[in-house]
């Protein structure tokens, strides 16, 4: 993390000044120490609007070092507008190497998707979080919801699942499915599909969640138990994909996203595009960025 301090283009390495990086790192360390706990931090301005991944970007820029290989994903895709622009920004302020390969990246910033490829020790996944508190659905007061977390008072959260079962016959929650971390805190895993929650359970990689607008950082350390909430007679289930395969690579073991075709039918494609490419034997070259 000994980033070169030499000025280039009028900003320090990785754009943020050392004071801000230090404040983010302190919050990250505290979040790792208390898995699932939302650590408040000073969320300063970055050159993107709040709500567009400013929390994730602050963590990325605070943790990245000259040797890191980074990857930016937006809803599983490396090539969407948000992913391309964030990658260019991080590349231009650091001069680091960007990759498309999730297994080789040391730092992955993602929105709404955990990479399908198996992660390994030493990797960091930064997820952009819009709403850090799983209790916000029914508790407006921050003071009250903090007390509920402290007292492990999750009756109303369970009630939301119960009402869903009563209304629909099963738990109908897509994104932001509440998960219990190490039997202590309930955490909002951002809008990742239910499919991704088992990928996070006991993963060797470190997961960090940054909510820039709400000024919270929370974490799932490596090898931590992640338990999506569910009932004995209505357990947690991932999305039902029986009979569906990716149109491009034929995969049925990855999360599939629908695309509406001209005929009105749905085609299904891997949400994780680099995973899909790797299965088809395609390979995209790394980008070595020049620091501006």
């Amino acid at each position, binding site marked *: 993390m000994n980033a070169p301090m030499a000025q280039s283009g009028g900003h320090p390495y990785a754009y943020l000044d050392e004071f801000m990086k230090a404040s983010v790192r302190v919050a990250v360390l505290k979040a790792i120490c208390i898995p699932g706990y939302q650590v408040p931090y000073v969320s300063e301005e970055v050159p993107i609007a709040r709500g567009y991944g400013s929390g994730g970007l602050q963590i990325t820029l605070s943790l990245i070092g000259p040797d890191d290989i980074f990857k930016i994903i937006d809803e599983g895709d490396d090539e969407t507008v948000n992913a391309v622009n964030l990658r260019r920004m991080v590349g231009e302020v650091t001069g680091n190497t960007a990759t498309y390969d999730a297994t080789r990246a040391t730092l992955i910033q993602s929105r709404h998707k955990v990479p399908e490829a198996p992660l390994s020790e030493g990797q960091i996944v930064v997820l952009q979080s819009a709403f850090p508190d799983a209790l916000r659905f029914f508790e407006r007061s921050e003071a009250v919801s903090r007390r509920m977390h402290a007292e492990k008072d999750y009756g109303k959260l369970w*009630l939301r699942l*119960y009402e869903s079962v009563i209304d629909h016959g099963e738990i109908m929650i897509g994104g932001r499915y509440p998960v219990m971390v190490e039997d202590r805190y309930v955490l909002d895993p951002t809008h990742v599909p239910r499919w991704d929650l088992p990928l996070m359970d006991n993963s060797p990689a470190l997961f960090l969640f940054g909510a820039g607008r709400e000024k919270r950082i929370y974490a799932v350390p490596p090898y931590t138990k992640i338990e999506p909430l569910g009932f004995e007679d209505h357990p947690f289930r991932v999305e039902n994909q029986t009979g569906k395969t990716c149109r491009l690579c034929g995969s049925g073991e990855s999360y599939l996203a629908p695309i509406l075709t001209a005929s009105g039918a749905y085609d299904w494609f891997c949400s994780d595009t680099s995973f899909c490419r790797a299965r088809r034997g395609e390979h995209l070259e790394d980008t070595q960025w020049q620091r501006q």
Partner: protein
Amino acid sequence: MATPVIRAAALSLRHGPGCRRCETQPDFDGNTCPDCGTVWSLRDVTFDVAPGEIFGIVGESGAGKSTLIDILDFALEPTGGAIHYDHWQGGVPRLHSATAQERRRLRNFEISVVHQNPRRNLMMGVSAGGNVVERMLAAGDRNIGRMRDAAGGMLDHMELQGRIDMRTDKLSAGMRQRVQIARALVNRPKVLLLDEPTTGLDLSVQARTLDLIRRVHRDLGLAVILVTHDWGVLRLLARRAIVLKSGRIVECGTVEQLIEDPQAAYTQLLVSSAL
């Protein structure tokens, strides 16, 4: 008499610094000290409730009845005195020294409250069954089938057959009150606090609710603390009662005695104005 299940010893709640006059020689009427302006919402309230007893608290509006219930329900912290609860560490330490987690456990399993206003207890956007089930979820039950059976049975007991999946804000006031009672009873508490449970209900619903409370009390054998300003309700349900005025107990005794032969001038006034 059996060991009391709940004992209030010299409970006081005051707002203000207090002075020598109001702390030692409270010779004034009302609850505001004329010297220092301290308001005594409750002052030296002492009573005990036996297991399986229905205990009444009577008094006019502003006498401190609901304040007393809020203290027994941990919503308020008393400034003086203590509550001893038989089922918590043998009734020895002050109940209000319990930690937040212990209080939540007590509120889940031991002491339940039914408020005059159902909105204080019920979530209006949630089904009637959900409001009952929430107590069981908080207590750690994770089986929907089992919880629905228990909640449904409790709602049937409250004459709310077929209303389990109805949203609470679609129910009438009397039904909401009964949902509240079902929610209060589902974890089988030892003490039930009823704060004016029938006020604002029409007479036939009132009679049915009272009948229900009596039946539940007989079936479950719990201790009930009943706050009311209605002598008829009191006579129907309670055996013993205290009369509160300006936060102080002016008289205590059996309900019969309070109605037939009131000693304190204030009780006489209350009884005569009711009849």
